[in-house]
């Protein structure tokens, strides 16, 4: 097969599971056979194609193909097939086929299996992509993807709480590891300068010499250990047994947990060989080996036993990799394959037992051999392989392990103790294997089962048969069967340093054999002695307190509760602290530059003090202080005083050559006062605080004191800034341009107005939009307005006055108010047309003199509001139909259309045009688009201001809706 065809085949193999996953996901819920068929076909096709690719790797060259993905960061999708990858890919695919066949019969007919097979295929694809990755980042990418898909698989029976929490635990642990791995590989990439696997594998020395080696190593190891359930991250694996058994058989024997191992093997040439590697990996492997085996002994759940044994065997592989010698690495690869075969078959067997007997509890199982002899036999063989009985594949790799353990590699204590500890682990492993078999298949017929078990269907047994056959064949004829493949894999994995090794059943009497026999004998004996005690165990001795899940939960809950505490401590949900912080931060950052450069007022000549202005301005400031003082209990006083401040600032503007500002400020001031008063009606009465003991608490005093300090600091800061700026000469600004062009090119003498409607009309457009939005918001918010209970009723004054009118003969209710307003109302009516004329005047001359659309609009709306005040809402609206939203829309559209008209002449938006028209008798009439724009402003301002004020005013004449029966609602009008 040519390279090109092979590449295409490889892509095909990789994409097939993903495509299959999507296809299966689209199947109807009940289509069990179709789903299984598609999934099986996909996996089988993958297996076959992968097998076909073998020649490409057999000669040691491998295959590499890639597409560009994120070239600037060195991330390309590269598929890289070599011996090691091939072996793993085959494991993934072939065992996948078997698991799919098995699952077809295992899953209940009522299960919506398309989802299951879809997830399974997605996982298969991710796993394949992981092992085929030719780029480290790509590897990390698919690494996380396997975590995710396995999460879905583990949580497949999500109706069970255990499945949900197990899935979550597995996800959190492995995803966290994956993130560490990502950083780790990025570090490696930085050392090497590339994420390309080939490059990385070629730069082992450089990596080990780098100062980043240790962090990178640790991060990558964390990734690998979490995935491969190594101590102390092993705890998620037993809980993951909540997954359907096919998932366990697939993920937890052959694939997912092997990803970590794969990574360690893959990077072995680069990372191994340092002391840190040896110490960390070996000891973690050893601890995991012993711990897992020890815990497995005491499990009562079949799958639990297998899970812990998996942990233990993964420990073996890790240990082997940790030792660091090439031969150990060979053993590791070999054991990986072996473990995959026997453990997958054991899981499947356990699944059959569960299926048939209805329980996986070892204490309830007994004597199943008579019901399912074939399954029992198969399980026995597989278990024997697990225990390391000769003639089976497990034995071979175990021998290699013992040999390596005995080998003296260095002087450390660990090295010395290794053979003994490994043997202890093996003894345990024999013990639990024996227990597994004996307890379930032998002994008296079971009594605690709910149904009578019998042999599983043939097709369900078939996968086990295939796998057990593999165990036996490899065990007996290792050199012929697995030998070549292993050889290719080892060469690919270890590169140049491939050692001489021999795969044979018999190596003569040797220390490893002795230890092996000891382990077998002691293990069996221990079972015979402790069998009964083991059945009574309900916890793992010595490790009882180290329940992984409880610790995980505890860690998470500590995390969450401390986060909550920290959130309260570091954050706040209250407004005052937030404003305080904001002011403080602003003060602080504004201060910083002055700390460095010092503060100095400028040198420009000062303006002479003008007593009249100075007096008014200081009175205005005094008003502000007094207003601040009164605002808590005397709101009205505060409003009055703040108005005073506003007025003073108007005068300031007049004095300081800004008549436009003064005019506008004055008008806005008036409207704001009315607005605040409208609001005041709905606020509660404030009474002075009555502190216990008539004394203000210290905390309150302190807070007020600190607020005062902040306020003074802010004020002083702003004052200092203002002073420093005002005393500096004005830079050569752009304002000259406006002054010079205003009349010539803008057609107006009032430069401020020309800026607003021409030079910077875009600002004005935005500004009126703000006004429009606010008006609409106010309007819509008030539609749902719900006054507080005590302010729903008429104000006290009105009630008293109405009561008075009612109580007195010759008076009708409402007389008081009508007497009150009779004269003012007449006068206000008179004033109305005058205000209208003034508004028009302000509008028309704005371009040349102070005024303009905005001022005119506000004046107009004040005229309206006055009528409302004098005559009342109903009376005004009976005569006057105000449609504020239409005004707003018209204003906006006119302004925007004026601007857009320029586009018709291919001028930019808002390009103005003006012309002086000679009209006989009258003289020159200025025609300017700016005036039209200002008209938009005018209309909008009238509409928006009126809408805001009227909407608030309307609240007074609305009444709560009382729900009637039948859900209908009705409004009861006042009076």
């Amino acid at each position, binding site marked *: 097969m040519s390279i090109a065809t092979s590449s295409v085949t490889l892509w095909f193999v990789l994409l097939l599971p993903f495509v299959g996953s999507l296809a299966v996901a689209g199947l109807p819920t009940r289509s069990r056979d179709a789903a299984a068929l598609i999934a099986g076909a996909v996996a089988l096709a993958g297996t076959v194609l992968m097998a076909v690719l073998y020649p490409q790797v057999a000669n040691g060259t491998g295959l590499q193909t890639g597409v560009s993905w994120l070239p600037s960061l060195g991330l390309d999708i590269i598929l890289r097939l070599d011996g090691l990858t091939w072996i793993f890919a085959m494991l993934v695919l072939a065992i996948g086929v078997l698991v799919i066949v098995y699952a077809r019969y295992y899953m209940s007919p009522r299960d919506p299996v398309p989802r299951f097979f879809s997830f399974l295929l997605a996982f298969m694809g991710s796993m394949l992509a992981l092992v085929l990755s030719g780029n480290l980042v790509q590897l990390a990418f698919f690494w996380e993807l396997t975590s995710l898909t396995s999460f879905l698989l583990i949580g497949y029976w999500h109706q069970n709480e255990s499945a949900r929490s197990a899935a979550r635990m597995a996800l959190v642990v492995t995803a966290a590891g994956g993130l560490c791995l990502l950083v780790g590989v990025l570090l490696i990439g930085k050392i090497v300068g590339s994420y390309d696997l080939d490059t990385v594998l070629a730069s082992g020395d450089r990596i080990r010499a780098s100062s980043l080696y240790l962090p990178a190593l640790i991060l990558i190891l964390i990734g690998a250990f979490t995935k491969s359930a190594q101590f102390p991250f092993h705890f998620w694996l037993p809980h993951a047994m909540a997954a359907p058994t096919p998932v366990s058989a697939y993920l937890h024997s052959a694939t997912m947990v092997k990803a970590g191992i794969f990574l360690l093997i893959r990077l072995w040439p680069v990372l191994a060989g340092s002391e840190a590697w040896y110490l960390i990996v070996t000891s973690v492997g050893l601890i995991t080996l012993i711990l897992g085996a020890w815990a497995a002994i005491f499990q009562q759940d079949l799958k639990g036993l297998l899970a812990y044994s998996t942990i233990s065997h993964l420990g073996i592989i890790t240990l082997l990799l940790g030792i660091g010698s090439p031969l150990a690495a060979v053993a590791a690869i070999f054991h990986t394959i072996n473990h995959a075969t026997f453990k997958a078959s054991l899981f499947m067997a356990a699944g059959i037992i569960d299926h048939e007997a209805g329980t996986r509890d070892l204490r309830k199982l007994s004597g199943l051999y008579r019901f399912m002899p074939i399954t029992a036999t198969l399980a026995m063989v597989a278990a024997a392989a697990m225990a390391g009985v000769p003639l089976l594949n497990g034995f071979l790799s175990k021998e290699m392990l013992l040999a390596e353990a005995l080998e003296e590699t260095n002087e450390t204590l660990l090295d010395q103790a290794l053979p003994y500890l490994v043997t202890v682990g093996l003894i345990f492993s024999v013990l639990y294997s024996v227990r597994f078999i004996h307890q379930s298949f032998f002994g008296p017929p079971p009594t605690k089962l709910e149904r009578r078990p019998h042999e599983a269907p043939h097709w369900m047994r078939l996968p086990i048969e295939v796998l057990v056959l593999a165990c036996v064949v490899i065990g007996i004829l290792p050199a012929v069967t697995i030998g070549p493949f292993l050889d290719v894999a080892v060469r690919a994995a270890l590169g140049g340093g491939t050692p001489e090794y021999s795969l044979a059943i018999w190596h003569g009497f040797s220390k490893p054999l002795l230890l092996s026999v000891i382990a077998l004998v002691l293990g069996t004996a221990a079972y015979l002695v402790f069998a009964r005690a083991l059945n009574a165990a309900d916890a793992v001795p010595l490790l009882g307190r180290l329940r992984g899940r409880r610790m995980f939960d505890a860690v998470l809950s500590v995390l969450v509760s401390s986060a909550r505490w920290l959130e309260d401590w570091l954050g706040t949900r209250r407004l005052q602290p937030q404003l305080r912080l904001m002011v403080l931060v602003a003060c602080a950052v504004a201060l910083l530059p002055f700390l460095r450069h010092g503060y100095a007022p400028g040198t420009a000549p000062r303006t002479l003090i003008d007593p009249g202005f100075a007096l008014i301005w200081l009175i205005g400031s005094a008003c502000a202080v007094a207003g601040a003082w009164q605002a808590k209990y005397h709101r009205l006083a505060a409003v009055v005083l703040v108005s005073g401040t506003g007025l003073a600032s108007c005068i300031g503007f007049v004095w300081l050559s800004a008549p436009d500002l003064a005019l506008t400020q004055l008008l806005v001031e008036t409207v704001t006062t009315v607005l605040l008063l409208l609001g005041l009606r709905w606020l509660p009465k404030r009474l002075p605080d009555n502190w216990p003991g008539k004394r203000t608490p210290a905390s309150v005093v302190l807070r007020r004191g600190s607020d005062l300090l902040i306020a003074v600091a802010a004020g002083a800061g702003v004052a200092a800034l203002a002073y420093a700026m005002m005393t500096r000469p004005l830079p050569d600004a752009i304002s000259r341009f406006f002054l010079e062009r205003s009349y010539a090119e803008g057609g107006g003498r009032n430069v401020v107005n020309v800026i607003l409607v021409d030079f910077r009309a875009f600002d004005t457009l935005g500004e009126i939009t703000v006004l429009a939005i606010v008006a609409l918001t106010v309007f819509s918010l008030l539609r749902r307005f719900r006054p507080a209970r005590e302010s729903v009723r008429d104000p006290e004054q009105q009630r008293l006055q109405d009561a008075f009118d009612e109580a007195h003969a010759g*008076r009708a209710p409402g*007389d008081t108010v009508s*007497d009150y307003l009779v004269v003012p109302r*007449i*006068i206000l*009516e008179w004033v109305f*047309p005058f205000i209208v004329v003034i508004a028009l*005047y302000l509008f028309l001359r704005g371009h040349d003199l102070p005024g303009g659309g905005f001022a005119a609009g506000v004046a107009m709306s004040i005229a309206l509001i006055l009528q409302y005040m004098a005559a009342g809402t109903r009376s005004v609206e009976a005569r006057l139909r105000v449609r504020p939203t239409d005004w707003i829309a018209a204003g906006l559209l006119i302004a925007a259309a004026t601007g857009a008209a320029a586009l018709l002449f291919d001028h930019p938006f808002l390009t103005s045009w003006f012309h002086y028209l000679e009209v006989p008798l009258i003289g020159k009439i200025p025609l300017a688009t700016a005036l039209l724009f200002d008209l938009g402003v005018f209309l909008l301002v009238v509409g928006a201001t009126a809408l805001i004020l009227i909407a608030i005013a309307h609240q007074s004449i609305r009444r709560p809706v009382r729900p009637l029966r039948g859900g209908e609602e009705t409004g009861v009008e006042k009076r």
Partner: protein
Amino acid sequence: MRRWLPYPGLALALLLVWLLLSQSLSVGQLLLGSGAALIGSHAMAVLRPPRRRRVRLAPLAKLGALVAIDVVRSNLAVAAIILFPRKGRVSGFVRIPLELTERGGLALLALILTATPGTLWVEYDQRKRMLLLHVLDLIDEEEWATLIKSRYEVLLLQAFEA
């Protein structure tokens, strides 16, 4: 005519105000001012105040002169009160029954009384036609009542209700 110019007098006043504001008698301003006056008087029409009968101007002019004198006089009087407080000065409320019912007249009277320092229009009871007045320097209630009735109300009655 009514349709186009609902309140001719008002429109004239508005035009006057416009011309005063623009400080110009040019044709352009006259036109603009007329337009504004038109709009203004239509704005008034929207409010639909009750129609008023013709107002006689002669009594009003006389009234204006009187008020001008009174304002200056009472200004000085009140200034004296403020600057040189004298013991025994009493201020208080006076009730005065009014014959004037016309809205405009009432409003004008209220303006005059309030604008004159020393007297303050406080309340008018529409049913009893009773005016409540506050006087800064109250010597004799009766005297105030007759003063107001004879000095202002008579003229106002002539202007508005004759």
